[in-house]
């Protein structure tokens, strides 16, 4: 009963938030709605008994990823409205509907067959975090290590890509010394 109420409430909230994310004209509204949707998704993980996954979802997505987006948006002019050329909606809805149908078939095809057995059954008597740790550090140890290396590569590439010319502090130099933007320079030249 309560599970059904929680499911339908959070399903409605998540769909609404992600719809705002996709449809909003402001990048800031879009990002805020996305952060809210991430937190609502973690509620599904808690309902499903995956406590550790829910905590990781809140920490990684609404903590790290959203902070990264917020810092990244400081580089972009995010306060003005986005002017976008939109494609014809009939084409988009047709392609979207077909892709969604394909997704349903992909997801539903394994469910049709009933001979699915659990490869790593949930251990009885221990909490979710402990069970996850027991599987993660035995069966999935090498993917775990590879994921760690991948995160290190991502961190280094993020620093190298975004950190260029960051040795000049924009708050310490005079106003006229701040290099103007390339586009304005091109406009002045042409």
């Amino acid at each position, binding site marked *: 009963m309560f*599970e*059904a109420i929680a499911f339908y409430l959070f*399903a409605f909230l*998540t*769909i609404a938030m*992600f719809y705002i*994310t*996709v449809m909003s004209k402001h*990048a800031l509204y*879009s*990002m805020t709605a*996305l952060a809210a949707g*991430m937190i609502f*998704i973690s509620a*599904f993980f808690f309902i*499903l008994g*995956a406590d550790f*996954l829910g905590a990781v979802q809140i920490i990684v*997505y609404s903590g790290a*990823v959203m902070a*990264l*987006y917020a810092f*990244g*948006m400081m*580089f*972009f002019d995010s306060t003005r409205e*986005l002017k*976008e*050329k*939109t*494609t014809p909606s009939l084409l*988009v809805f047709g*392609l*979207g509907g077909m*892709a*969604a149908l394909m*997704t349903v078939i992909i*997801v539903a095809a394994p*469910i049709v067959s009933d001979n*699915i057995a*659990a490869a*790593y*059954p*949930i251990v009885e008597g221990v909490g979710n975090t402990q069970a*996850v740790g027991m*599987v*993660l550090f035995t069966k999935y140890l090498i*993917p775990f290590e590879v*994921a760690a290396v*991948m*995160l290190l590569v*991502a961190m280094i*590439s*993020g620093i*190298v*890509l*975004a950190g260029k010319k960051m040795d000049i502090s924009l708050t310490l130099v005079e106003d006229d010394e701040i290099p103007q*933007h*390339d*586009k304005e320079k091109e406009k002045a030249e042409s």
Partner: protein
Amino acid sequence: MMEIGLNHYLVLSTILFAIGLLGIMRRRNLLMLFFATEILLNSVNIAFAAISHFYGDLSGQMFAFFVIAIAASEVAVGLGLLVVWFKRSGSIDLETLKSMRG
């Protein structure tokens, strides 16, 4: 209606995935494309967690963890590239990427 089964979660996951796909096809702003990608990854995570719960198997949760790790590194690299592209072209619109058109 009152009993929440696996199909409820899979339908929800599909709806969220369709919203993400709609965003990817509709938006022309690269930042919005990143947001839509996050929606896609999250909808798949719901399906993984639901299957993991209803089949009593922890592999689904493991895959959801790796999906989260991939999403985090994708955001780091993608935002770095986006910052470089914005410094170079002054716009994060998808149309500005059409520089190789003959």
